[in-house]
């Protein structure tokens, strides 16, 4: 399996009266992530499936990323991506095809990645908009890091 772990793009700061889960992407975050997605496209990244957290910033990031989902691919919202990784999340990932992107939040994506790579501590620094490409079996220590693509790299690739 190829698993692409994506942290959501830059969101507006928390504001009084608005819950954390309802923070939208900032204009800067939206524009920058659009460039990141262009970079991913130039690198040939494509997904069979896209799974994302229900938080607004993840939904909006997933929407931008959905252009890389194959025409017959599927997107799905997952409550399990809005919390620490669990067996239920792994079960959900497992049923979703061979090239899957998941869009979520730190520190949970870091915990997920560390578990799959068999690391004892955080193994990947996930900046907002970053992508970690893992490959292998979906089990503890079963995956290797193929590439870590921080946003500045993706933006450079996008500009050619």
């Amino acid at each position, binding site marked *: 399996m190829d698993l692409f772990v994506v942290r959501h793009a830059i969101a507006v700061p928390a504001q009084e009266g608005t819950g954390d889960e309802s923070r939208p992407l900032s204009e800067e975050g939206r524009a920058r992530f659009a460039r990141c997605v262009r970079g991913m496209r130039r690198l040939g990244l494509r997904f069979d499936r896209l799974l994302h957290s229900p938080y607004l910033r993840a939904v909006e990031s997933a929407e931008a990323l959905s252009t890389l989902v194959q025409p017959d691919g599927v997107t799905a*919202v997952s409550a399990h991506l809005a919390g620490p990784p669990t067996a*239920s999340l792994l079960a959900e990932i497992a049923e979703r095809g061979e090239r899957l992107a998941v869009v979520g939040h730190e520190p949970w994506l870091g915990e997920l990645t560390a578990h799959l790579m068999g690391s004892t501590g955080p193994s990947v620094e996930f900046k907002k908009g970053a992508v970690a490409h893992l490959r292998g079996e979906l089990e503890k220590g079963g995956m290797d890091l193929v590439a870590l693509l921080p946003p500045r790299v993706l933006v450079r690739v996008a500009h050619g």
Partner: protein
Amino acid sequence: MPKPRSKRLERIPVGPWLDHLERHLPVARLGGDPEGVHQLRVAAQRLRTWLKLQGLRVLDDDLRWLRNGAGDVRDLDVSMSLVEPGPYLDELRRRWRIAHGDLLRVLDAPRLRALLEALPRLPAARRERVLRATRRWLRKTRRVGNRLDWERAPEEELHAFRRRVRRLRYALDWLGEPRKAVKVLSEELGDVNDLAVLRDRLLRGEHLAAADGLTVEEVTERLARSRADAAKNWPSLARALHKESL
């Protein structure tokens, strides 16, 4: 049923039909009233239209999953309303209990909870964008209707057109600008579809109370007449769609 939104709103929120969906979830769960499942499916389809009007892809597959998850129960509710009492009705009831069990698994799924959390967080749709998309759909509906061979086209083609018209009707409702011609067209296509379904059920040997003693041949003839009527009415409906432009 949520009322059409005011024309003056610059933004079109998802709220009314999301509320409608959530109100019917417990009714669908209980299973005693077919309206629960029916309205759940109607609301899901209207919400899909709201997403499509904005060109949004995420959450559409989730709404389709929800709608499809209730599909078997809906089909059986409709079947049970048509069939005469007897062993076949008992068999449909047995199948309904299985389908309802499957629906309960959908209603209990974390995916539904996540969907209901995500939808209200989406910003309200910009009216201008919805208007542009609806105009495109209106033009396309006229073009497809003009190319359709109303009397001879395969039923699947008519059914696809019916889905297109339904989507257009929902779009106009979101804008708060329902169009009589679209409603009439939608009802005509609905009648054609109902006759086709009735004919298929009779061909399968079902004993249908709703068939009122009609034979397959009689229903087939009615279906042909219904299609001929739709063909005759289409030009004036197309003109009305053109005149009632947004």
